[in-house]
């Protein structure tokens, strides 16, 4: 076992110890198909939680998105995101000649699965904010990739904004049924439908 593998194993164990990281596969089974998981975003812990809730063999092919300026700023941060999570780096500042979605398109082209938080930023509790359009463009370009909505419950209690140490509280991730972009569907309508699909999972028990 290599060091990054061991570190990943330890991180997943830690996440399970602290949050339980229960994955409820409500609308689809955990299968090794190419997928885009999209979820509500409340805490820095969200990604680790989804990652730990996935079965071991899916973790290796499922990649997070990381902001390049922040997650490459120190050697440790860079090592964690590159070696353990195999993150896809994106630039937050939009430049004239580059499409911010380009790294994501490239990763999907390789056959990797992605986890994205379409709100773009961490919200407070309550309903998720309106989704950014990235999800729509990816769905348009990769019609064969499954779009899986996911609801992360309780995580804002584990690590509220501004705190560093997580408190042990049980969390769960509920995965819903795959979503499809309808032919000719309007961008705004699709994003609203995706947002509702995520929120609908809140009441699934």
């Amino acid at each position: 076992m290599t060091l990054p593998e061991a570190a990943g194993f330890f991180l997943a164990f830690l996440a399970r110890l602290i949050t339980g990281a229960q994955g409820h596969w409500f609308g689809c089974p955990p299968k090794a198909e190419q997928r885009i998981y999209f979820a509500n975003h409340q805490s820095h812990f969200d990604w680790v939680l989804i990652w730990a809730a996935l079965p071991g063999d899916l973790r290796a092919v499922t990649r997070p998105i990381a902001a390049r300026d922040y997650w490459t700023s120190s050697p440790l941060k860079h090592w964690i995101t590159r070696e353990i999570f195999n993150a896809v780096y994106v630039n937050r500042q939009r430049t004239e000649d580059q499409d911010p979605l380009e790294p994501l398109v490239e990763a999907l082209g390789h056959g990797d699965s992605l986890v994205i938080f379409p709100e773009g930023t961490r919200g407070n509790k309550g309903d998720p904010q309106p989704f950014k359009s990235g999800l729509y463009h990816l769905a348009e370009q990769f019609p064969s990739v499954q779009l899986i909505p996911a609801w992360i419950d309780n995580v804002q209690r584990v690590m509220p904004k501004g705190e560093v140490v997580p408190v042990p509280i049980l969390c769960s991730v509920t995965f819903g049924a795959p979503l499809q972009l309808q032919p000719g569907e309007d961008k705004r309508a699709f994003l609203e439908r995706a947002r509702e699909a995520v929120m609908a999972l809140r009441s699934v028990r």
Partner: protein
Amino acid sequence: MGALRHLTISQQVGLLFLGLFGALAIVTIVQVSRSLRDLPPEQQQMHERFMRDLRAVWWGAVLFWVSWALGAVVATLLFGVVSFVAFREFITLTQTRRADHRGLLLAFFFVLPFQFILAGSQHLDLFTVFIPVYVFFAIPVLSALGNDPMRFLERTAKIQWGIMVCIYGMSHAPALLLLDLPRYEEHGAFLVFYLVVVVATAQIVQEIASRRLRRRPVARAISRSFSWRAWLIGAAGAAFVGALLYWATPFKPIPALVMGLIAGGSGTMGEFVMKALKRDAGVRSWGGKLSVTGAVGLLDRVAPLCFSAPVFFHAVRWYFGV
């Protein structure tokens, strides 16, 4: 049965395991063979509940075996882990706010390990007062520093209560393990065993009794099966089994009977209280089924032990004057 006292410790333990696991195996086989037949739905439900209780008893028995086989340090650690998982579930079920974050960190990462270290190192004086006195003051101070007056008393009271039950109560089980009693050195594991068996007996007997008797429940809104008579029968069953086990304990038969009554009675009361708590938190399913955030239902299984361990512990200390 007094002759058994003359056997060496390991022989006695061997006998205990033979009896315990043998009895459990017989009950399990009978129950499993019953489940092969077609039962009416009502009985089916009761049967499932009984199987769940039985599984809890198996867990208790295995826990005891591990704690005896691997020594007191491992046993203390094991109870510490169980306490951690139970407290995590408790906090998940209660409403805390952001301002409680620091207090919860203190509870999880300092109070819990420290309490079990105190139990393991036999600092019984500090062990007894650490949580009721010092932590009682520290937690609300931290919560108040969080600068949020919203439902302040309610929040701190809930955290306090959770610490008392899940950490303080649970830590008395390993403390029993290490209790030094006159002419009873190295026998602590038997006391824990006695406690676990007696409490489990009380639960099972009460369950069966309430099914047979169909008395009017005392508090229908909380539990539809809890009645005074069933509770008494459960406690009496615990007392009877406790008296049968007297040779494994430092007690004479009559005190063993009384101790069984105390431990069993308080254990089933603890279960009843935990039911009220879960009702309050809006959890309808009991045990096994997934709830709010996938809380797996360990809390209701260890609740009887958490409630009866301190009562039993101090009864033993008072009886022997140590």
